[in-house]
């Protein structure tokens, strides 16, 4: 187990390094940040001064080495726009995104699994057919459109919930979050639901498929033959078997939620990392983009690791140590 974790962490370092290479050179290709930063009426000497100040006069290879040296000591460079360290900017925006992703993950679980169970246990009921039809919509409707409709309905027409922003935050257990205030919870509900929609649908479908498949296994029949109450047959014998694929998918989806909440954050003006990324991309703020993408890669690697460990907790047949990772 320990060897497994160490091996995975070493792989993570390699992946992050490769990512930095791709992103650094990639961002360099899409445009010259100088055009964005300097006012059009600046003279040549001023332009050159800025270029030199940002280190952009150096060959790209040298710039990269310089960047790597910084990264080794935790310095991803300063944002061209804000003049602040890129890492600090991202960390400032991270809690908002993490709480959004967490809430929508929780929504996916507490809505998706029960609905999937209903649809799987009683596939012939009208309610089940309704759930499945809704899940297709959840998959196929574009996020931005659903987001706008949610705002229209709940914020504009009904006026129940605020449409934008993060609301009040409070500090609890050393974490500042909008989850600790009523106002914050009101603000997070719509964007989280919007972000969760595809995942709820995904979980419904996974759960239903798992239930339908597992229900006819001999061990479920045997559990019934033992005279166990139906709640235990479904809640333990069935549930524990279908959780395995659900945990895997949700783990990976959580990474996706963190990384690609861009659309939702933009629509709901949620001050998270996704919004920061979009702004930085538009302004060719290379250090921020590079740092952001590297952190996301790190997230994915860590989440994969956690999923693997959870997996072994759920499925006794999986032994992490014996397996080639």
């Amino acid at each position, binding site marked *: 187990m320990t060897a497994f974790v160490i091996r995975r962490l070493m792989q993570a370092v390699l992946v992050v390094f490769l990512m930095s290479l791709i992103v650094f050179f990639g961002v360099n290709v899409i445009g010259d940040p100088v055009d964005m930063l300097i006012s059009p009426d600046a003279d040549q000497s001023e332009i050159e001064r800025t270029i030199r100040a940002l280190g952009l006069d150096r060959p790209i290879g040298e710039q990269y080495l310089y960047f790597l040296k910084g990264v080794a000591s935790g310095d991803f460079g300063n944002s061209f726009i804000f003049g602040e360290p890129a890492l600090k900017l991202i960390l400032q925006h991270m809690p908002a995104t993490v709480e959004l992703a967490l809430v929508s993950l929780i929504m996916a679980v507490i809505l998706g699994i029960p609905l999937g169970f209903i649809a799987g246990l009683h596939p012939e009921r009208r309610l089940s057919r309704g759930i499945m039809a809704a899940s297709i919509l959840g998959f196929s409707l574009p996020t931005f459109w659903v987001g706008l409709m949610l705002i229209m309905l709940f914020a504009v027409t009904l006026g129940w919930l605020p449409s934008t922003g993060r609301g009040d935050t409070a500090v609890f257990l050393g974490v500042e979050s909008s989850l600790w205030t009523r106002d914050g919870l009101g603000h997070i509900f719509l964007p989280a639901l919007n972000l969760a929609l595809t995942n709820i649908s995904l979980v419904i479908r996974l759960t239903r498929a798992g239930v339908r498949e597992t229900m*006819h*296994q*001999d*061990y479920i*029949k*045997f*559990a*019934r*033959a*033992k*005279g*166990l*109450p*139906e709640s*235990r047959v479904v809640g*333990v*014998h069935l549930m*524990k*078997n279908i959780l*395995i694929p659900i945990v895997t998918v949700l783990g990976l989806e959580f990474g996706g939620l963190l990384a690609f909440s861009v659309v939702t954050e933009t629509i709901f003006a949620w001050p998270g990392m996704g919004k920061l990324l979009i702004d930085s991309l538009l302004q060719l703020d290379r250090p921020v983009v590079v740092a952001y993408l590297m952190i996301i890669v790190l997230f994915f690697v860590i989440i994969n690791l956690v999923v693997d460990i959870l997996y072994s907790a*759920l*499925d*006794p*047949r999986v032994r992490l140590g014996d397996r080639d990772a």
Partner: protein
Amino acid sequence: MTVLSVEGLKTHFFTRAGVVRAVDGVDFALERGEIMGLVGESGSGKSVTGFSILGLVDAPGRVVGGKIVFQGEDLARIPESRMRTLRGAKVAMIFQDPMMTLNPVLRIDTQMVEAVLAHRKMSRREAWTLARDGLARVGIPSPEQRLRAYPHQLSGGMRQRVAIAVAFLNDPDLLIADEPTTALDVTIQAQIVHVAQTLCRDRGAALIWITHDLAVVAGLADRVAVMYAGRIVEAGPTDDVIDGPRHPYTVGLLGSVPSANRRGGRLAQIPGMTPDMLAMPDGCAFRERCPRGDAMCGSAPDVTVAAGGHAVRCFHPHDGEARA
């Protein structure tokens, strides 16, 4: 004392293609401590009969007629809540494939303790002790260790022993064993048969042993019932049926078993296939494959009972003399 009496049991499956009469009028009775072999080929309805008794027929199937009187209660009529208290307590079942019977993600102790606690009020600790003794009783070495294992860490024979131990946890009066040795190799088969037989004898539990293997039944059962296409076509004391079969189907079945004293000869076959369950012919379902079938067989034969309780459902039965 009669533990179980099944009368005119009908279990039908309502599929889109039509109604499958998997069990179509089955009668038998079991005395306390008696072992009955229920024999038939795949699709003859023997497993469905077992599941019907336990009330575990999967949709789209259901028991549509007949009585299943178990200790004075008709299991076909009682509510599911009452049925649940009997299942695993008074009537237990073991299944064909031990690889699939135990839940792969739960430890053996979890699966045994829950079976005890579903029926008895006692502490987890006491239930665990019962589970341990149960494993020891079916001949599993170092039961404490095995209790902590997951099913995949045990061999097939070991898992079937665990399943038997689970079935006996609450001292049932009736055990239904659905081809429990089919998936095991021959040496293990003998052990499993022995374990089940001994436990039933010791505790006075009646046993229905469902199988297609006449050799197993010959050495195990007190009585044999032969099923064909949802009906029992012949039933009687094991020796009478094996040595002097009366129904042409039983004769065919016994003739197709290889035996040591007919070495080198061609093995007899029953011609044709089991009838299409959706389009069951009227009359005797076996008549198209039967060497003795004639126009008379177009109507359904009744059961005739000979001396010693040897019953047969046929117009042209063999005389029941011991075969050479």
